[in-house]
C-alpha cells in the first residue's frame, strides 16, 4: 500500500529519537586509541644505529637524518621528519631492523606555525670520542648518556611529554 514506507520511516526516526546516542564528546571524553595507531613517531635513540634504512623506505622522503663517525660507529646527530609530507604508511617503522622507530598513540600533532611542523626527534652534537672508551676509562656511562639525551632533544622530549601546549594542539 502506498504510504507504508513513509510510516515505517517515521517509526524508525521515532525509535532513533529515544535510543542511546553515538557521540563521544571529544575533549571531555576520548575514544580509546588502538595500540597500532599511527600517531607521532618516537625514536629510541639508544637503539638507533643510524643505518638510514627508514629514510630509504620512506616513499615521500620525509626522514632527514645526519650522522657522524665517532670512533668505529655511526653516531646519529640529527633526525628530523618533515611530517607535513608524511603519509603515515608505516613503512619506515617496518624497515627498522633495530626496533628503534615506533608509532605512539599521540595524534595531536597540529602546529600553529608552519616552521614548527618538522618533527625533531634528535638534534645533538657528536661526542669527541667513542662512548665505550669513555665508559671504560671513567665508568660513568649512565650519567653521560642521560646528559647527552637531555641536551639532544629538549624540544622533542617536552612535546612528547605534553609539556609544551603552547606549540602543539592549537
Amino acid at each position, binding site marked *: 500500500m502506498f504510504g507504508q514506507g513513509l510510516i515505517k*520511516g517515521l517509526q524508525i526516526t*521515532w525509535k532513533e*529519537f529515544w535510543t542511546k546516542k553515538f*557521540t563521544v564528546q571529544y575533549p571531555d571524553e576520548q575514544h580509546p586509541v588502538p595500540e597500532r595507531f599511527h600517531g607521532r613517531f618516537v625514536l629510541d635513540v639508544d637503539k638507533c644505529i643510524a643505518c638510514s634504512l627508514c629514510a630509504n623506505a620512506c616513499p615521500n622522503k620525509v626522514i632527514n637524518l645526519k650522522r657522524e663517525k665517532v670512533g668505529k660507529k655511526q653516531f646519529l646527530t640529527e633526525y628530523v621528519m618533515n611530517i607535513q609530507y608524511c603519509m603515515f604508511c608505516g613503512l619506515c617503522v617496518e624497515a627498522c631492523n633495530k626496533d628503534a622507530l615506533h608509532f605512539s598513540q599521540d595524534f595531536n600533532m597540529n602546529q600553529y606555525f608552519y616552521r614548527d611542523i618538522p618533527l625533531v626527534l634528535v638534534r645533538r652534537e657528536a661526542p669527541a670520542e667513542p662512548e665505550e672508551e669513555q665508559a671504560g676509562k671513567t665508568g660513568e656511562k649512565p650519567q653521560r648518556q642521560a646528559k647527552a639525551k637531555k641536551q639532544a632533544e629538549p624540544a622533542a622530549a617536552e612535546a612528547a611529554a605534553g609539556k609544551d601546549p603552547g606549540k602543539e594542539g592549537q
Partner: protein
Amino acid sequence: MLENLFVGVADWLRSLLGGLGTPVEINEAIVMLVKLVAILVFILLNAAWLVYMERKVAAYMQARIGPNRVGPKGLLQPFADVGKLICKEIVIPRKADIVVFLLAPVLIFVPTVMVFAVIPFGKNMAAIDMNIGVFYLLAITSLSTLFLWMGGWASNSKYSLIGSMRVVAQMVSYELPLVLGLLGVIMIVGSLRMSDIIAAQEHVWFIFTQPIAFLIYFTAAVAETNRCPFDLVEGESEIISGPYTEYAGMAFAMFFMAEYANIMVICAMATIMFLGGWHAPFGLDFIPSWIWFFLKMYALIFIVMQLRWTYPRIRVDQLMGFGWKVLVPLALANIFITGVGMKIYQAIGW
C-alpha cells in the same frame, strides 16, 4: 490565576492607564501597542529557539547529541548564532540589484508578523479578533512568495533564480489546496472569525469530522513553508540554497528566522482549525488554555521537524503533479462531501 495571566496583565495595564486620566482611545491604543510588541518579541524568541529545537530533534534522530556547549544543554546556542551572524558582513554580489536584494530580507518578516495579530493564543488572548480572521491570515501569508522571489531574482545568480522560480511555482500551486482544505471547516462553522471556529470545537475537534481536510491542509502547509519533503526551494543538494544562496550574515538569518516563524503560523493555524485551539481535551481544564494551545502547536511543530528528518525531497515535476492532480481534486471532493453531509444533517434536523 494562571488561566487569565495575560488577560489580567492587559486589564491591569488598562486600569493603570485609566487612572492617569488620558482619553480612552489613547489608552486602548497603548494597550494594543503593548500587545503587539509582546507578540513580536515572542515570535522572534520563539523562532530563535525553534532553530535550536530543530537542531536538537535532528541530532537525536541521527544518533547525535546536537548543540550542547553554549549555556545549559546548549540553550543559549541561538543567541550565539545570532551574535555571530550580526558580526558577519553582508556580502552583496557585484551584479545584484542592491535595493531589491537588501529589501527582501527586511520585508520577509512583515507578513509573518502581521499574521500573528489575529491568532488567539488562549481564551480571549487574540490581539485583534477580526471577523474575517481566516481570510486575513490566508491573504497575508501568500505575500511571502513575493519576498522570496525578490531575494532570488535580485541575487543575479543562476542557482538563486532557479530557486526563486521554484518558490513561485510551489507556493502558488499549494495555496489552492491549502485554502480548499480549510473551506470544509469554514462551511461547517459558517464564520471566518477564529474565536467562532474554536468555539464550534468545544465538543468535537474538526480533525475527527474533517480528517481528510486536515491531511490536505497539513501537507499543503508544509509545502507552503518550504519544509521537507517539499523543500526543493532550498534543495541544498541540488541548488545549494535556492533564493538564499547569495545571502550572508543577518540577511540570511532573517530568511531563516522567517521560515521558522512561518512554521509557527501554520502549526498555530492547524491547531485553531482542527485541534480545537485552546480547548482542553478530556476535560483537563485545570491546565490553562494558552498552555494547551502551545502544547498542541509544538506537537505539530515536532511532527513537521520529524518529517524533515525522515523523508527525502521530491522532485519538481512530482511536486506539481502531486499538488494539482492529488491534493486539489481531493480537496474539492472533500468540500462536496461536506456540503452534501451538511444538507443531509439539516434534512434530518440534527
